[in-house]
């Protein structure tokens, strides 16, 4: 099997990650306020410290763990809106995932916000287009850092500067970039940054979270036990208890800490370079087939989106998996507005290598895709 669905969930995981999960299940857990013991490992703190190191941020307490990136957005977006007084206009982009689009559209339907979705051009969101969409009521911009369909990375530095000059809050969804490329949150004008554990940070599903620079800007929308200040019947204001409730996913956080340690040892610059090179190779080969339509010729992330003329994308994925053992992802990739623009809503095939994908695997996968394209072409010509 050649697994090229890493933009969904990375596989394989580094051996260190598998060992960390095993170790976490073999020993009791130590978490401050939640046990009288002190013999086990404190995976929560380890994972927070790993995030601080990778993203160059301030205190670990400002990293909040959630179930995944979507969960993080469902805390941050309503939490911010709840803290806004008066009319609230929000901007997002047509490149975004349903994890952003759906919470915002639900808030719009409920009459809580007005919403502008800015278009993309050549897989990019122009800072000028964002600037033009700002109105006096604009309070929030939520957008993806890297597109999960087109592999393009947005200039969040330039966009963040425009927003901060106007006091507009900026939430960035880094689900596709965290671990794939250097992200220096210490120098980026971003108010909150979302990550997921199970993609390029090499953790497991069920982990994710966000970094929040100033927690006083975002209200609390979930309430429950924190292991601290337990006599109070109200949610603590301290970080991270303000947003983190219930028992943590200890094995998941152990895996996350190990995954981030792996990313740090490999180096995000090296990971980014390899990803770009493999994507460029795959694209250059696919371009040799006249009936392959490529939607992103210069991705910064290792994501390649294409269709084969005369075949439905789902059928291409089926044939690649069954006849060649190449695992891709087909359909809309939870990014309906990207596909509305690019594929007339029909979707496409996405292949996404990871740090563990070898050049040899890329060659075999490319050969398979080209064979399917040639087969489709000759079959249709026969008919």
């Amino acid at each position, binding site marked *: 099997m050649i697994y090229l669905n890493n933009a969904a969930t990375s596989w394989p995981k580094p051996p260190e990650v598998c060992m960390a999960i095993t170790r976490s299940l073999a020993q009791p857990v130590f978490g401050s306020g939640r046990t009288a013991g002190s013999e086990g490992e404190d995976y929560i703190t380890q994972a927070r410290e790993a995030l601080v190191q990778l993203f160059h941020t301030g205190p670990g307490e400002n990293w909040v763990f959630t179930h995944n990136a979507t969960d993080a957005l469902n805390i941050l977006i309503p939490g911010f809106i709840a803290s806004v007084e008066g009319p609230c206009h929000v901007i997002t982009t047509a490149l975004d995932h349903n994890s952003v689009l759906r919470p915002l559209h639900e808030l719009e339907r409920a009459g809580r916000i007005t919403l502008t979705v800015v278009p993309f051009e050549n897989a990019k969101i122009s800072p000028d287009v964002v600037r033009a969409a700002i109105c006096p009521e604009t309070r929030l911009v939520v957008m993806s850092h890297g597109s999960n369909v087109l592999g393009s990375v947005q200039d969040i530095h330039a966009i963040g500067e425009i927003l901060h000059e106007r006091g507009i809050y900026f939430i960035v969804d880094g689900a596709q970039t965290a671990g794939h490329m250097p992200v220096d949150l210490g120098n980026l004008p971003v108010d909150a940054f979302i990550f997921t554990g199970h993609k390029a940070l090499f953790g497991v599903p069920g982990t994710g979270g966000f970094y929040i620079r100033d927690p006083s800007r975002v209200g609390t929308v979930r309430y429950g036990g924190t292991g601290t200040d337990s006599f109070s019947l109200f949610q603590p204001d301290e970080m991270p208890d303000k947003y983190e409730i219930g028992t943590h996913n200890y094995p998941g956080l152990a895996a996350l800490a190990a995954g981030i340690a792996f990313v740090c040892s490999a180096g995000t610059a090296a990971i980014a370079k390899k990803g770009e090179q493999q994507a460029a190779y795959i694209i250059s080969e696919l371009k040799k087939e006249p009936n392959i339509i490529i939607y992103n010729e210069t991705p910064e992330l290792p994501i390649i989106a294409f269709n084969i003329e005369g075949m439905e994308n789902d059928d291409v994925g*089926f044939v690649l998996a*069954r006849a*060649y053992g190449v695992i891709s992802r087909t359909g809309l990739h939870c990014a309906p507005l990207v596909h509305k623009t690019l594929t007339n809503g029909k979707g496409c095939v996405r292949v996404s290598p990871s740090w563990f994908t070898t050049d040899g695997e890329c060659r075999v996968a490319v050969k398979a895709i080209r064979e399917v394209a*040639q087969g489709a072409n000759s*079959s249709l010509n*026969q008919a």
Partner: protein
Amino acid sequence: MKEFLLSDPVTEDFFLFLKNFGHVEILPNVGEGFYKFEKKDCFSIKGLVGDTTLEVRFIPEVMDITVKFLYALFHFYGDGKPDIKTLKQREAGMEKRVNESLYGK
């Protein structure tokens, strides 16, 4: 989506048999031959010649009605001498129930 594991590899002949009951799309030069059968409002079947599995996608609302017809297709074909006339009668009965269920007519 359901995956059906077959006792024998998929053949071109099987999909040609299915042509009696719906639309069949053939890409003979893709893999060992890629075949797709579509029965409107009921289900679609995808398969590669030589593979021992078929992928079937049902319309969920009427799956309890259509799955029996799917099994009949497998059964009659597997028998070696598919009785098209009997299958056509079953198909008509199934389609009537599907129409009632989906469209109330």
